[in-house]
């Protein structure tokens, strides 16, 4: 019976509740639904599904599972019982192991064949008194899913002999050397036998001790080091050969006696049997049945709350500053995606923050949907959701909510991706779809650790104790935790979920998914907004706290903000007041606003500054006009203004003898002629003051009028009737064909991209005109595969290769008809 068949039968025999628990523990088994048990068993035995299941095992579960896998190989696949396992797992008792074994069986990672076929444990020492229990075997592809080094042990010598060329010969020599130490080995006619015999000898404590005693000093330490991680780097691992002698280096001696396998020039592997021997003839020194005791430092609740509340206030202030109208947005993106270093630097300067804070703020705001990418110009802009969020409580809620579900790791920004490039803010490289799950786990583990901590002080949880706890729960994800947890903790601190390293009440509420209550707690924690400020004679206004946004908006029109922190100082200067005047305010309204919100009397110097600036505002006025009229004849101006057509031309009287019009000079001229005047067109002279010209005779052609359309053909812009007709036909024929001259380079690119996308959809080849690096035009028939990030991936059917073409090198694109989906 095949393994899958057996599993299918076992599953079929399970009760409904057992099945339900299996399916809830391994949800991927029924997504999408499976038709029958064999299918379920088959899916449960696939490598992908097993790996997912392994990720959710705790440290003891994984230890037991790995031990079963390794021990079952000893027994030749007949299975392992709890007692045998206990012997190889640091003497763990069956009562400890049985539940774990049951859990693993419930998850269909182990099978317990109904007929007990207990394999003989090799030592036979521990098994005598224990009653033979249920025997467990690992399910199908488990060995593959666990990888080549289960339990951190190397591959068996038998395997190494097979996969390492040349190792067999060395092993035969090694067997000879081992024999010469007085260790009895069976016959070793071939490398496989030598491997088997050596493994056996290593596994016998007496023989192992003989070997150790013969080894040169230093060998034992080397073995210890490799016992944790089986592959090690040593200089010149693949050596010419071992020369016996007292001066032999430990590595050489171990290699020469088959206790190490040379992988390549610089790496060696500790074979499984040797690793177990080094671990005291066990698979693991002990079973980590309980999570590691964390090293928590006490944090005073006052310190925790102070840190959290100041962090929340600061984060909210910075997000506000980032999104404020007139703030540093929009943010441009690079063609390769993400926000470039220079742009980040600009924002950092505008926000006056540490350089590392800027990418985080961008990611946070984008994650909460407060910043959105405008696809038209590839710039991140405030979406208006921030304004909709209104108060700080709502803003915090939006940020926290967005952060929890953010499938990105903002802390990865600035680090290097595997290909060596620095990861940019908001770039695809910082995307981590597992980040939300890890965040939840971090909060869960923090709650767990906090609950275990006793004492009046809060528990200061650092990244290492948190990672240790998470790794106990999910050892297979250790690396992921190590990479992500420090960043997540820092982010959680910025949102006030942690403070001074300790989980805050806000964080606990978030962990329980009580976000609105957490937001209410944030509101409680934040100082109430103030609506007044203190104006001083050094021409500053200090808002002693978080200034009511409505007041702050108005004050920002008057004064430039300075300083970072809970209170902002606003400095007045003539330049800072100008925006308010531009916005239509005058000295009276400005002073009224300041008096209303100032907690103190306005200093005379400020009153003077406002009045003086306002009084002299607008001494020069600028507007735009299409044409003007100047004359010495007031009556003509009045007549023009009185005519109803004047309004349509946008005529405005600037002075008794000067009129400006929105309309152009020719229209104004025509109207004046209609009114019976004879206006003379005027050209600005270089000196700027044109002398009044004598009225020109009415019949003279006005030089200001554009020359009529040229009747003769000349110049590059001309076009014939036939050409126009042909153009219309080709347009009617559809947009498939991008013909020569279109509006401009931008239009061309868009059309080209459109054509490319069409071709990708239709899978039809195109004739692509590109410019090579020398600027020469190249035309090729290619099949476009995808377009993104300014690059086109194409398949070259002639050379049968895929390549990438930059969009900016594409000159034209033409779909080749009739060959689609060929």
């Amino acid at each position, binding site marked *: 019976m095949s393994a899958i068949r057996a599993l299918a039968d076992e599953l079929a025999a399970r009760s409904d509740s057992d099945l339900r628990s299996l399916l809830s523990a391994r949800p991927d088994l029924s997504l999408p639904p499976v038709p029958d048990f064999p299918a379920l068993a088959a899916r449960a035995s696939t490598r992908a599904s097993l790996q997912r299941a392994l990720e959710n095992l705790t440290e003891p579960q994984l230890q037991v599972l790995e031990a079963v896998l390794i021990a079952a190989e000893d027994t030749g696949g007949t299975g392992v019982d709890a007692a045998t396992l206990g012997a190889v797992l640091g003497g763990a008792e069956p009562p400890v192991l049985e539940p774990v074994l049951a859990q693993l069986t419930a998850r269909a990672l182990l099978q317990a064949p109904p007929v007990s076929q207990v394999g003989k444990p090799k030592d036979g020492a521990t098994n005598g008194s224990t009653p033979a229990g249920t025997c467990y075997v690992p399910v199908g592809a488990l060995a593959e899913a666990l990888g080549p080094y289960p339990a951190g042990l190397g591959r068996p010598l038998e395997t190494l002999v097979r996969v390492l060329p040349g190792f067999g010969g060395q092993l035969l020599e090694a067997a000879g050397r081992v024999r010469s130490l007085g260790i009895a080995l069976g016959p070793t006619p071939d490398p496989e036998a030598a491997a088997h015999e050596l493994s056996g000898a290593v596994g016998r404590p007496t023989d192992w001790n003989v070997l150790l005693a013969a080894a040169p000093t230093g060998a034992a330490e080397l073995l210890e080091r490799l016992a944790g991680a089986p592959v090690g780097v040593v200089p010149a691992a693949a050596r010419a050969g071992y020369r016996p002698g007292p001066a032999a280096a430990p590595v050489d001696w171990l290699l020469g006696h088959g206790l190490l396998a040379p992988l390549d020039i610089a790496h060696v592997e500790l074979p499984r049997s040797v690793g177990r021997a080094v671990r005291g003839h066990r698979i693991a020194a002990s079973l980590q049945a309980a999570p590691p005791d964390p090293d928590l430092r006490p944090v005073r609740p*006052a310190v925790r*709350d*102070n*840190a*959290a*509340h*100041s*962090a929340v*206030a*600061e984060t909210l202030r910075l997000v506000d500053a980032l999104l404020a109208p007139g703030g540093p947005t929009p943010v441009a993106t690079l063609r390769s995606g993400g926000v470039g270093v220079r742009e980040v630097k600009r924002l950092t300067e505008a926000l*006056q923050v540490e350089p590392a804070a800027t990418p985080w703020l961008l990611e946070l705001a984008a994650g909460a949907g407060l910043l959105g990418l405008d696809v038209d110009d590839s710039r991140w802009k405030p979406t208006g959701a921030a304004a909709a969020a209104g108060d700080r409580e709502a803003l915090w809620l939006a940020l926290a909510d967005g952060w929890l579900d953010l499938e990105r790791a903002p802390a990865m920004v600035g680090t290097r991706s595997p290909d060596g490039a620095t990861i940019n803010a908001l770039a695809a490289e910082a995307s981590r779809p597992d980040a939300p799950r890890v965040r939840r786990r971090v909060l869960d583990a923090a709650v767990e650790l906090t609950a275990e901590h006793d004492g009046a002080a809060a528990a200061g949880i650092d990244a290492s104790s948190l990672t240790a706890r998470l790794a106990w729960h999910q050892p297979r994800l250790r690396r992921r935790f190590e990479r992500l947890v420090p960043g997540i903790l820092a982010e959680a*601190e910025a949102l006030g979920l942690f*403070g*001074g390293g300790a989980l805050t009440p806000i964080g606990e509420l978030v962990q329980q998914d009580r976000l609105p209550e957490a937001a209410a707690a944030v509101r409680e*924690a934040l*100082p109430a907004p103030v609506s007044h400020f*203190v104006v*001083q*004679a*050094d*021409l*500053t206004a*200090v808002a*002693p*706290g978080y200034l009511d946004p409505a007041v702050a908006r108005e004050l920002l029109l008057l004064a430039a903000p300075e*300083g*970072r*922190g*809970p*209170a902002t*100082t606003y400095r007045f*200067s003539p330049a800072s007041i100008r925006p308010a005047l531009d916005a239509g305010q005058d000295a009276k309204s400005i002073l009224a606003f300041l008096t209303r919100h100032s907690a*103190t009397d306005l*200093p*005379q*110097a400020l009153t*003077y*500054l406002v009045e*003086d600036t306002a009084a002299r505002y607008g001494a020069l006025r600028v507007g735009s006009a299409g044409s003007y009229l100047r004359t010495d004849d007031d009556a003509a101006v009045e007549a023009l203004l009185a005519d109803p057509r004047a309004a349509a031309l946008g005529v405005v009287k600037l002075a008794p003898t000067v009129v400006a019009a929105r309309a152009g000079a020719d229209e104004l001229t025509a109207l004046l002629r209609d009114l019976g005047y004879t206006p003379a067109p005027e050209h600005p002279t270089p000196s700027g003051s044109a002398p009044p010209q004598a009225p020109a005779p009415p019949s003279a052609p006005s030089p200001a009028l554009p020359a009529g359309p040229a009747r003769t053909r000349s110049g590059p812009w001309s076009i014939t009737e036939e050409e126009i007709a042909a153009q219309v036909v080709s347009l009617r024929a559809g947009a498939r064909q991008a013909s020569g001259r279109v509006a401009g380079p931008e239009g061309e690119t868009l059309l080209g991209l459109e054509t490319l996308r069409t071709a990708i959809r239709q899978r039809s080849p195109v004739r692509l005109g590109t410019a090579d690096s020398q600027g020469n035009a190249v035309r090729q028939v290619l099949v476009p595969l995808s377009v993104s990030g300014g690059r086109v991936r194409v398949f070259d059917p002639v050379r049968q290769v895929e390549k990438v073409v930059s969009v900016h090198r594409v000159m034209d694109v033409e779909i080749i008809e009739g060959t689609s989906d060929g």
Partner: protein
Amino acid sequence: MADGPLIVQSDKTLLLEVDHPQADEARHAIAPFAELERAPEHVHSYRLTPLGLWNARAAGLDAEQVLDTLLSYSRFPVPHALLIDIEDTMSRYGRLRLEKDPQHGLVLRTTDYPVLEEVLHARKIAPLLGPRIDGETVVVHSSQRGQLKQLLLKLGWPAEDLAGYVDGTPHPIALTEDGWSLRPYQKLAADSFFSGGSGVVVLPCGAGKTIVGAAAMATSQTTTLILVTNTVSARQWKDELLKRTSLTESDIGEYSGAVKEVRPVTIATYQVLTTRRGGLYPHLELLDKNDWGLIVYDEVHLLPAPIFKMTADLQARRRLGLTATLVREDGREGEVFSLIGPKRYDAPWKDIESQGYIAPADCVEVRVDLPRDERVAYAMAEDGDKYRLCATSDTKSGVVEKLAAAHKGEQLLVIGQYLDQLDDLGERLHAPVIKGDTSVKERQRLFAAFRSGEISTLVVSKVANFSIDLPEASVAIQVSGSFGSRQEEAQRLGRLLRPKADGRAARFYTVVARDTLDQDFAAKRQRFLAEQGYAYRILDAAGLPG
């Protein structure tokens, strides 16, 4: 949330609301570690700097006390990163100590081996050090004590100097408090200086810094070298010392361009010390000529750069710096701190004013409109000439005349930068002009006549910016200045701050040409005074009476 008077900002400033009932308490609590930066009328701002925190450590304060102070007086949560930063910064102090070793002389000792390694590998520091005694100790060339301290400070590992001071030659000096007595803040300043060893005392002009110097000398009871800015100031110091202490004429020597006397108390000018002849400083040996027990630097904000270097070699002697404004236009405040010593005493001007020790002052800016032709000339002038053009506008002279007429009968000073302008004003006001080429004798005669009331108006150039004691001057009119120099503005106001016999307020006018560089510079200059709480009123010249 506590409703404290302090707002702790993440940019390392502290805002103190002075009208808060706890404000005084909080001010005293933060003063040891935070630098007062601005003291306008309602909200004072202090800054946390590494230097300030290290000074606090030197004075025996630890990080926990600092954090407690911040947390207990702060109105809002204190940024956590700031707290960590403070802890971190303060922990850097004292890992290196300068000590006297009976066997090896001056040594640098550490409790933290890697720090010493880092220091030993700094390229600039290595040459200052002698042989290494053991893992934690290295010999220091005693002449390099100052420079080493300065470089260590720059490196961020300030050394705790436990090597002490040389005693100097004893010389009896006592204060003769007959008819006057040391004011409380003067005593406090002298005491805090002496308990700190070396350092700077910051007091407003007219608050009696000379007496703080005399009090320090009386405590020290040793020979003293006093460095001052100019000869007139040297004479004033001498007069003051004769009046306030038991020192006699024969005890005090003047070491200046004119006279070269070395006596138990010697007053030397910066200028004579920095005179160079053939690439050497011939008068520099004065510093070593006597076993000075105390060196006093008057107007330490003006200390010329070469003196910095010399001072670096004087670390074994007690040093007292005196100034009204620790604002250096060259931004070298840090060097003053590391070479002379940290700030030992500072008081907001307004505090001393409210105690009645300096006169209240009313600052008025008078804006004049340039006439059309001057505006055009100004607009078309080269950049380099613009300030001169607007600052010396003729229209200002008319305004000065009006103001002088309005204050007829009061002791009036007219202060300016440009000599032509001053000469012109002297003629118009029928007043003598004191400028750089006026002899010391003539200056002293004129100042004496002004003090006695014989002359009621003086026109002075920048020679009178500092250290000239004119107690009865009650009105000053500033017509032009050294561009945007803030400390000049403060010094000029300082001329007026001696308390008046009748308790009158002083009046300080600045005449400024509207819409020109003059106005921009005036704004910059006034900022310092505004930050000291001296509010300017602004008047239009057209609105002046008369």
